[in-house]
Structure formats: C-alpha cells, structure tokens
C-alpha cells in the first residue's frame, strides 16, 4: 500500500528535474525531452489522484489521455520548429537564438 504522498513527492522531484533540464540544456532537443519529463511528472500525478481520490469516475485518467494527446502534438510541433530553426541558422542551441527580442 503506497501512500499518495509518495507519488506526489516522486512526481514533484521528476518535475523539478524537468525544470532544470529546460533551464539549463543548450540543445533544443534536450530541452524538449526535459519538457517531456515535466509532462510525465504531471501525468503521474494525475494518475495517482485518479486512483486514490476518484477511482470510480477516473477523471485523472481521462485528463491524462488529453494531456498525452496534446503532449504528442506539442512535441511534433516543437521538433518541426527546431528543424526550421536549424535550417535557417545551422544550430539547435537555444542560447544562440535570440529572436524573441523586443
């Protein structure tokens, strides 16, 4: 019998690792992977809540389905953008791209 808190703490740590990856990695693909980690941390949370709090209605699971779907869309678009940038700039390093300026 695993307490709910364990899942929460585990997903929190996982999410934090994802944050670190997003903030610190240069390679855009690694940044995307880190985003995926964050996504999955959230999903673990949903799943745990679903199992512990609303086991009958399965709200958390359904949220996870939607989250996975939009996550898939996100990674597709994200990779497409990385490809696009790579074509224009010959780099996938995030800190070499600063087009988001005033």
């Amino acid at each position, binding site marked *: *019998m*695993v307490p*709910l808190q364990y899942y929460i*703490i*585990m997903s*929190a740590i*996982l*999410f*934090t*690792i*994802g*944050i*670190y*990856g997003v*903030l*610190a*990695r*240069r*390679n855009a*693909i*690694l940044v*995307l*992977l*880190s985003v*995926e*980690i964050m996504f*999955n941390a959230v*999903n673990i949370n949903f*799943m*745990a809540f*679903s*199992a*512990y*709090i*609303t*086991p*009958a*209605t*399965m709200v958390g*699971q*359904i949220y996870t*389905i*939607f989250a*996975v*779907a*939009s996550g*898939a*869309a996100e*990674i*597709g678009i994200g*990779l*497409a953008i*990385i*490809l*696009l940038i*790579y074509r224009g700039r010959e*780099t*996938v*390093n995030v*800190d070499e791209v600063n087009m988001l300026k005033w």
Partner: protein
Amino acid sequence: MSGQLLAFWALSFVILSGALYIVMTKNIMHAVFMHLLTMSMIAAVYGLLHADFMAAMQVLIYAGAVTAMVVFALMLTKSQSRPDGAGIAVDNQQRGASFLTAAGFLAVVIYVLVPQKWAVHEAAPVVKSDVAAMGAIIFKSYILPFEVISVILLAALIGVIVLARKED
C-alpha cells in the same frame, strides 16, 4: 514492506535517475535512449496504479512514437556535442542558477503539498481499471473535449507538415 511499496521504490529510483541522466549527460543519443527507459518505467508506475490501458498508451506514445520522432530529429540536425561527450558545452551559462531555481521550486512544492490532507477514497487504490467503463465515460461525458483534442491533433499534424516542409 509490501511488494507494491518495494516496486514503487525501485521504479522511482530508476525513473529519477533516468531523468537525471537525461538532463546531465553530454551525449544526446544516450539521453534519448535513457528517455525510452524512463518512459517505460513510468508506464510501469501506471500499472502499479491499476491503469493498464494507460500504461499501454504510455509505452506506445512516449516510449515508442515520441522517442522515434526525437531520434529522427536528431538525425536531421547536426549536434555540436560529439558522441564522446567531449568538447562543446551542452549546458548553457545559467546552469547554476537553474539548479538553484529548480531546487527552490522543489522545496516550495514539497512544503506546500506534503502537509496536505488528501481526501483519499476508501476503495483506493485497489479498483481495477476498466477500459470499457473508461470508453463510456469519454464518449459520454467528455465527447466535446475529445472532439476538440482530435481537431488539435489534426491541426498540429498539418502545422508540422507546413513548418517542416522545405520551401521550394
């Protein structure tokens, strides 16, 4: 110490160390493979939570589709970090700050979430997940979001094609 708990600890250890490896390694290829592993372990966690359907989905989408896509992306772009991991930095300059920020975040989240009293259901977590019931719920209560998410996926599909297409 039940088997479940033991399994949880083991899975957690693998997931977290895998994630750490992803954000630490200098070799991107290794990171991708570790990603595959991590995602599979998360699927196992879902199984631990009696959500077999979701576990399958997790393996299919994350461990399969996403990882494959990332590998393709890696092949199409030329990374500056060499396979041996030497040479050009894979982390940016705000690495230390990022670490502190992430640690702070973790502290806040744990400080806020852990003391919470969750309204845990009596039946939890023993109720077996029922795919049929889940399908009924999705196609009854959540039909509109479901349709919307399919449109979003379609839009993303088209968007990816448009974005990634080489201009003539």
